[in-house]
């Protein structure tokens, strides 16, 4: 009996997660997301994946005991994972659970039982568990290839709704259109597409690593000069292609995807800024949204007819950035002596104060109170510079905003990158690692910290200014703590202190919810889960910062060691 317990425990956990996901409404919501057209929805995948993962974990745990042990553990996990949902249905059908749990309705129970009954539930879960257990026993490369292939199919299916409109732009080109529609149906990936994509990704994944190894071997066999030449060429070509691609992007994809890219860009700007404050200098600023708000409101106040100023954007932008910088310094001064948790709370408080003030009646005549400021002109095209290609529409089409955002992102990346490897950047890292030692080395703590705040604030101010002209209005409600948290999760996911990490984080956390509306209800829940899981498993993020030293500088700032008072 005790032999079976580890597997059962994992299975029960998976079942509990299923029940939780059902009760919060995820199971029902996901049913709207079709992955394989007319065949599989996200819910199906969720309900099968959980027991499968449980089976895989159980099998892996029991594998030292041999294949038989592993498979039986997986089977046990499968059975166990069906128990909690079965209990839920049993209880739910006798008692009025829905008075308390809003999602516990008859539809949910039907879904959990696959529309047939308890046998179906147990059957599917046992089969999934066994499959997961078997896969876990396969050799590593094959296993990884299977997972990659499955993920690719699911991802494509989920994004089919987005890719179709882009495809239709190329309707004229038969090759693209025909293959595209063959693979992507109206509502997910087609069955043909599933087979093709699965096979393709599987093969690529299997042959990918060996191919890369062979390339590396070839590379190291050449002379040192040739090596660095190749590397530089590769890097240069990469940059060139990326920048060229970015420049023509609006022409390649439709206006809705560009809208998403705009949003990603704005968050990249903010992410780069917060990356400096949190990642480089180690100051956990939870009130970051305040600078964003200040940038946006400054532009609003200066350019909208609200106060009668109606200055051009070119003038308002530098003022906005300056205002944000000043705010950054003002915020930085009282918190110079605080650390870690206190710093986080105080900055959070500041962020909230700014929002409360913006919303209050006290400053209503300047900031518009709860109604905010509207009719901000989309004047970032520098007056006469509007691109005739997209036409002059009010509000400006997303393609037009794209170029200023792209420009500022590139500037921000450049600034951040240069700062990182400059004296100031090293000073920040030193302050992050150990303040007292840094001070002992002659680093001016006050100046360094204030510069971190100021630089971070300036980038947020930039982003805020852009969003004000993009959206055309500013409301205090849109500058809450949520945004600070959003940016924080973004850089944590990507990797604190890592510049490419910001891009990864922004793509995942901003683009995905936009693309997959069915997730939007659970966005913040997933953010919370991401934070916890990341901290528990991979605190250095998905694309960790490379550090000048070979120490563990990738992790969020370590606390000073023994003896240092904080």
């Amino acid at each position, binding site marked *: 009996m005790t032999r079976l317990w580890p597997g059962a425990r994992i299975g029960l956990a998976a079942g509990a997660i299923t029940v*939780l996901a059902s*009760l*919060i*409404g*995820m199971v029902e919501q996901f049913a709207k997301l079709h992955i394989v057209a007319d065949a599989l929805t996200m819910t199906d995948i969720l309900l099968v994946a959980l027991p499968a993962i449980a089976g895989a974990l159980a099998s892996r745990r029991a594998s030292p005991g041999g294949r038989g042990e592993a498979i039986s553990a997986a089977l046990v996990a499968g059975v166990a994972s069906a128990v909690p949902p079965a209990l839920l249905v049993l209880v739910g059908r006798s008692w009025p659970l829905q008075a*308390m*749990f*809003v*999602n516990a309705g008859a539809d949910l129970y039907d879904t959990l039982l696959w529309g047939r009954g308890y046998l179906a539930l147990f059957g599917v879960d046992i089969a999934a568990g066994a499959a997961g257990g078997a896969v876990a026993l396969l050799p590593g490369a094959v296993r990884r290839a299977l997972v990659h292939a499955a993920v690719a199919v699911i991802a494509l299916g989920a994004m089919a709704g987005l890719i179709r409109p882009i495809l239709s732009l190329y309707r004229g080109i038969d090759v693209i259109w025909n293959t595209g529609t063959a693979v992507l149906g109206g509502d997910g990936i087609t069955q043909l597409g599933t087979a093709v994509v699965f096979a393709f990704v599987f093969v690529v994944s299997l042959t990918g690593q060996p191919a890369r190894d062979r390339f590396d071997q070839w590379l190291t066999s050449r002379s040192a000069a040739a090596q660095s030449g190749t590397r530089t060429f590769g890097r240069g070509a990469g940059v060139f292609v990326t920048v060229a691609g970015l420049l023509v992007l609006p022409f390649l994809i439709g206006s809705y995807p560009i809208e998403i890219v705009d949003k990603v860009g704005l968050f990249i700007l903010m992410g780069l800024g917060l990356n400096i404050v949190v990642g480089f200098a*180690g100051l*956990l600023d*939870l009130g970051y949204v305040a600078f964003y708000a200040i940038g946006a409101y400054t532009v609003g106040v200066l350019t909208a007819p609200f106060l009668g100023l109606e200055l051009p954007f070119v003038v308002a932008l530098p003022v906005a950035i300056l205002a944000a910088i000043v705010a950054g310094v003002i915020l930085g001064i*009282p918190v110079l*002596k*605080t650390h*870690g*948790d*206190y710093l*986080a*709370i*105080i900055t*959070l*408080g*500041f962020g*909230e*104060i700014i929002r*409360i*003030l913006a*919303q*209050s*009646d*006290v400053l209503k005549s300047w900031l518009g109170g709860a109604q905010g400021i509207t009719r901000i002109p989309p004047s970032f095209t520098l007056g006469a510079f509007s691109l005739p290609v997209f036409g002059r529409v009010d509000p400006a089409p997303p393609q037009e905003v794209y170029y200023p955002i792209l420009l500022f992102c590139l500037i921000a990346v450049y600034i951040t990158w240069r700062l990182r490897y400059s004296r100031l950047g090293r000073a920040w890292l030193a302050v992050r690692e150990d303040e007292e030692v840094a001070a002992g080395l002659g680093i001016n703590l006050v100046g360094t910290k204030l510069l971190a705040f100021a630089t971070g604030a300036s980038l947020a101010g930039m982003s805020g200014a852009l969003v004000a002209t993009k959206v055309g209005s500013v409301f205090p409600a849109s500058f809450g*703590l949520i945004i600070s*948290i959003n940016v*924080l*999760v973004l850089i*944590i996911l990507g990797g604190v202190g890592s510049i490419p990490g910001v891009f990864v984080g922004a793509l995942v956390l901003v683009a995905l919810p936009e693309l997959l509306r069915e997730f939007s*209800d*659970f966005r*913040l*829940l997933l*953010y*919370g*889960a991401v*934070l*916890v899981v*990341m*901290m*528990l498993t991979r*605190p250095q993020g998905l694309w960790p910062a490379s550090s000048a030293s070979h120490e563990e500088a990738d*992790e*969020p*700032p*370590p*606390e000073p060691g*023994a*003896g*240092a*008072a*904080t």
Partner: protein
Amino acid sequence: MITTGVVLLALIVYGSVVTLRSGTYTTAQWLDFVVAGVSQGSVYALIALGYTLVYGILRMINFAHGEVFMGGAFTTYFVAQWLSLSECSRQAARDLPAGACSAVAPLESHPLLVLLVLVLFSASVSLALALVLERVAYRPLRDAPRLIPLITAIGASFFLQYTFRGLYGSGIKAYPRVPALEGAIMVFGVRILRTQAVVIGAAVLMMAALFLFVQRTKTGQAMRAVSEDKEVAALMGIDVDRTIGITFAVGGALAGAAGVLYGLIFGQVHFFMGFLPGLKAFTAAVLGGIGNVPGAMLGGLFLGVAESVGPSLFLEGLGVPSPHQLKDAIAFGLLVLVLIFRPTGLLGEQVSRRA
């Protein structure tokens, strides 16, 4: 920086003087404000105790404590709802034939008993939540650099908020009114609403119990030992893991109890209700001196009164329109002031020695 603090204080004094001299409010009204502040502050104090206990032992802010508070309060709402219905209404709701039933709801016939049940239930739910949090999210990270557990706590906070939103819905639920607690009583010439009296009374009882627990029992002694020096306490044979678990449990239970009291005062619960009280309770804990149990109680009361009396007292005097909008800003402002003038809090910090 000192200048900023002095300027702020000057503004406060000036504003207060103006309001008082203008005589806009009678003494009775001021007393109403104060009593309201005390009852609200009691709730903050109970929540603050959770923060301070955990910080004293682990030197971390349990950012998700506000959600522990919310979890208990929100779940208990359903129990309260159920107990506010008489047997007859329940039968009618289920379309059962009207047999011999009582037309009196338990909440009406035995209000104090029902309240006790609610408090105990809420405390249990919150306790369980706190324990799960500690076990899953905090224990594995106990030795990690300090920022990591903090970020985890933030993540846990959001996760809990939206889980409860998914479970119970995003609407605001109204706590059932307790008929026996309508009206006010006069105590030493001061008018106190019955609900406020119950809240203050319950809070005082719980705080006294906690104080005795921490000071007089062996477990309390263990908690104090671990919060002074974890390693040495372990050497003395104290089970550190268990003690930390108990600390979280106690803090959680108090927060849960506070949840029911909150429901009594404000009459509503919703998934986001933990955020502001959580922040304010933390401010209160810092005010009193983080890690300091009497400090947290004092801080909570002080904050409650400041929030209640403040807007009318000095903001109005300064000519601020709709001063009560800035009520929350007062709490944050207090935090900043404390950290400028007296960072160790009113009664002094009490945190573990860094090894």
